[in-house]
């Protein structure tokens, strides 16, 4: 099958002007601006099949958003290959632009002073959507996202959650085959997040759209994407199933002990890292490889009523990935 997205050794450098704080710094940077090369992407490669839903994770500034921006044609790559649906994104051919959409959780395209329906009408004209199809899509999206009553309200009067859902409609009226989502649930409350998530899931299933998504929200990833790509410092360090990520990055196990009587915690600290004490429950974190030994030791030396050994939760692992913890030790800072 033809790949929807193909990226090979993609590189992107930015030039950033540095400025020291304060007035003196401003004056100094005026006369001799200090430029610094930032390597946002250091040669990443991956491909995505049509209909896949892929989540990008990684700490802030890892290059996730840069990747999406290159794929949607906003940025010129410094070098390397990027191809989406057979197009070079940066050529921004109208045919290509009609097949994609980028939704950024922190950016809006709706006209602030006008009701959302005005932006929709404008997009209908820009994307040359037939009137009938436009009406059907709009009705469908509006009911899916439960915003039928908000279409004629001035955008500035809407809440963030309402606005975000309308942003989705504006971005999807032309039924893009590929959807790039950058932090789509940022700043939304739990209910709002859920609505957006359900919608993304449905959209992927219903239209077979290919979706690439970045998020800091672990629930987004756990509920939506089966495949994740982990990026740190401009490099891909993992690309595969979410379960696989867990087994690969889970370096520790969690032992939960229920004690029969109080003990000196110091003795337990020699076995593993004590994470939580809430007598009679004590939670320990131990290296994966020595988990069995540690458990045996605990059973032998302490008055144990019950003991369980568990994998670290997905949340914990992804949380570490975000912090850049699980990555190579050769990290330079």
């Amino acid at each position, binding site marked *: 099958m033809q790949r929807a997205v193909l990226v090979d050794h993609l590189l992107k450098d930015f030039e950033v002007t540095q400025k020291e704080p304060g007035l003196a710094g401003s004056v100094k940077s005026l006369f001799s601006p200090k430029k610094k090369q930032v390597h946002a992407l250091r040669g990443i490669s991956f491909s995505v099949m049509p209909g896949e839903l892929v989540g990008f994770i990684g700490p802030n500034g890892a290059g996730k958003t840069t990747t999406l921006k290159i794929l949607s044609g906003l940025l010129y790559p410094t070098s390397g290959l990027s191809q989406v649906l057979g197009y070079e994104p940066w050529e921004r051919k109208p045919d290509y*632009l009609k097949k994609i959409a980028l939704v950024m959780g*922190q950016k809006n395209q709706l006209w602030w*002073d006008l009701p959302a329906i005005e*932006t929709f009408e404008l997009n209908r*004209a820009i994307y040359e959507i037939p009137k009938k199809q436009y009406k059907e899509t709009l009705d469908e999206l509006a009911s899916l996202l439960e915003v039928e009553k908000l279409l004629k309200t001035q955008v500035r009067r809407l809440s963030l959650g309402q606005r975000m859902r309308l942003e989705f409609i504006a971005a999807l009226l032309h039924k893009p085959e590929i959807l790039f989502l950058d932090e789509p649930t940022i700043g939304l409350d739990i209910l709002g997040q859920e609505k957006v998530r359900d919608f993304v899931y449905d959209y992927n299933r219903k239209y077979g759209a290919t979706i690439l998504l970045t998020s800091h929200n672990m629930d987004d990833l756990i509920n939506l994407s089966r495949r994740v790509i982990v990026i740190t410092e401009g490099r891909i360090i993992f690309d595969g199933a979410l379960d696989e990520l867990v087994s690969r990055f889970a370096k520790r196990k969690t032992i939960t002990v229920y004690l029969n009587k109080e003990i000196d915690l110091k003795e337990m600290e020699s076995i593993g890292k004590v994470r939580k004490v809430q007598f009679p429950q004590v939670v320990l974190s131990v290296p994966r490889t020595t988990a069995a030994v540690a458990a045996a030791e605990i059973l032998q030396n302490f008055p144990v009523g019950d003991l369980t050994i568990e994998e670290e939760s997905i949340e914990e692992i992804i949380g570490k990935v975000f912090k850049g913890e699980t990555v190579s030790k050769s990290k330079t800072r």
Partner: protein
Amino acid sequence: MRKYLSVFRISFAQEFAYKINFILWRVRNVLQIFLVFYLWDTVFQDPERVVFGYDRAKILTYVFAILVVKALVLSARAVDVPGEISRGEVSNYLLKPIGYFKYWLTRDLSSKALNLSFAVFEFLLLYILLRPPIFVQTNPILIVAFIISILLALLIFFTLLFTTGLVPFWVPEGAWGLQFMVIFVATEFLAGGLFPLDILPESIQRVLFYTPFPYLIFFPIQVYLGKLSSPEILRGMVVALFWATFLYLLMRNLWQRGLRVYQSQGR
């Protein structure tokens, strides 16, 4: 084409969202005309008096023509371009199958249409209030020449505004300064928006006519008033056409290069 009709419509609606702003902007224009009108009205008290080749009717027509020509040439929405670039909002358009220049040109035209309709109304109002002697051009050739020179002025202003508006690609903080220079300083004084340029010393005029500025306001009005000979009109149009072409190419070139360094900021 339909695309741009929709852009025209929504842009018009947008202007109405800021009714008060717009009306105050028009009031400012009218007040300015009042001031300039009374200044020249005093200078030309004697209807027989001719100064700098202007008699009373022609200078007062000049003042009234400023009102209309400014509404046509200088009203523009593309002043928002530098802000959009430095805030990274251009991304919205880059993602869509729409031409950025054409988009802004359309928005400018919608702004011009709105401003012109107000200017005509103000013109009538001021005419009734002040009852100035107005010079009406009857020579059809000069009227056609006037329309052509206005079109050239539109092109020069659009490309000039846009070119200066692209600076934030390289200097994001420079969003406002250069455009302020171009619009408020250059156009008001160097284009003849306050006084006719031929009252300036010859030497300054000669230099000025090689710059694009006089072709924005002064030149079209001169053509209308019939103050220029045919070769002068022709020469002026050639210079104006040169600037329009040059600025257009410069604008396109800068835009292409700007996109290469564009960082789509604000995340």
